[in-house]
């Protein structure tokens, strides 16, 4: 699980072009959207693509994505629960 979380952080930093950030800057429970990391709805669509491409997991409804993409913890839990 911890490996997965680290892997996710690296993938997210690269995918969303979060220059100046390292995995250490993102806490596992940090809120990714809005006030936390400041991601927005375009990033949410990018994360859906990430899960689909790298983890073969489909999220049809962007609303569903909101809960899953709350933090690194919730994304990792979602991936684990499906595998």
């Amino acid at each position: 699980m911890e490996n997965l979380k680290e892997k996710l952080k690296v993938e997210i930093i690269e995918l969303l072009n979060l220059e100046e950030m390292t995995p250490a800057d993102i806490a596992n429970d940090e809120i990714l959207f809005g006030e936390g990391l400041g991601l927005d709805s375009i990033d949410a669509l990018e994360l859906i693509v990430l899960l689909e491409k790298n983890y073969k997991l489909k999220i049809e409804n962007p609303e569903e994505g909101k809960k899953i993409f709350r933090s690194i913890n919730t994304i990792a839990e979602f991936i684990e629960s499906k595998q």
Partner: protein
Amino acid sequence: MSKRVFISGYGIISALGFDAGQNRNALKNLKPGIGKPNFLKTRQEVVVGEVDASNEQLTDMAALNGASNISRTALLGLIATKEAIQMAGLNKDTLIGTGLLNGTSVGGMDISERAFGKVLNGQSVDYKASFAGHDCGHSTQFIVENLGVKGYNGTISTACSSSANTLMHGANLIKSSQLDCVIAGGTDALSMFTLNGFNSLKILDSEWCRPFDQNRMGLNLGEGAAFLVLESEEHLKARNGKALAELIGYGNANDAYHQTASSPDGKGAFNAIKTAMEVAAVKPEQISYINAHGTGTANNDQSESLALQTIFGKNMPPYSSTKAFTGHTLGAAGGIEAVFSVMAIEQQVLLPSLNVKQPMDIIAAPNKEYKSAKVETVLSNSFGFGGNCSSLIFAQV
């Protein structure tokens, strides 16, 4: 700038038909043009509002004998402008001083995207023939050259409000006495590029779109072109032309909220409508009918409804979205819906919405019938990516 701007003709081609008559009949008979694509090559399982003709057939329709490799965008634009000129009765001499403004979002992408695939696969391509029509300005140049229009021309590319903005700019050019007569509208063909783009945003409904329905799932893309002839009063009189309607108000505002999404409260939409009403000097209660932007996405219809509520309050005029008929024709949508607005005035009818089973709870249900009504003033909305919000107001003459 007190000059008046009249509409003396229009031309339209869409999934509903190849000319104004066919489009009007489809609206009257509640017959949408949405279905599986026959000409657009795509792997996506979608329904679209496709113009029911191949490129070869469109080339014939535009009377371009044997020309090939011409973008559908340019072909559709030429067909619609020809009809507009004919309806207005503009002769060759008049066209010399006439301007043309074209709105398009992807220009000749339908041709260049195929050629680019070949380039990537290392196949040989005729570069000039394949890519010379890619940029938005090409379709404008193609149209003016084929029509013999020699006056000022311009191309606007502001996504889904492009052709509403050409009408606004056309009115400004007439009011500032830079032109007496201008053909304004827009054209956009379906392309693999836009289809996949909207699909990646997850805002396409795989079934018929349901604008202003509580359970709407997204939009259907469409294609088409529509152009209107705008004239000053003096010009119209001098050539004994007939005014079909008047463009009395227009407004453009930026939502400045998000790159693609509309603000939840419809701030930009509100500002555009408000400006248009100020220019037109009309009060909310004077609006007889609204041709809404109404794409069928969760976000647009919510945001537009709230903007309309803020402006009209309890006295919401009858409104509808004709996008359930044509699909969202992007750069052409403002022109197509301007033509529909003028038709509503000419025919004294309200145009219908389709596929509304459960109206939204934040706004009165849209009009669902093609029915007679006193239509003096019509508001037409077009909102696009980049927060671009435009509203036009047409009046009976």
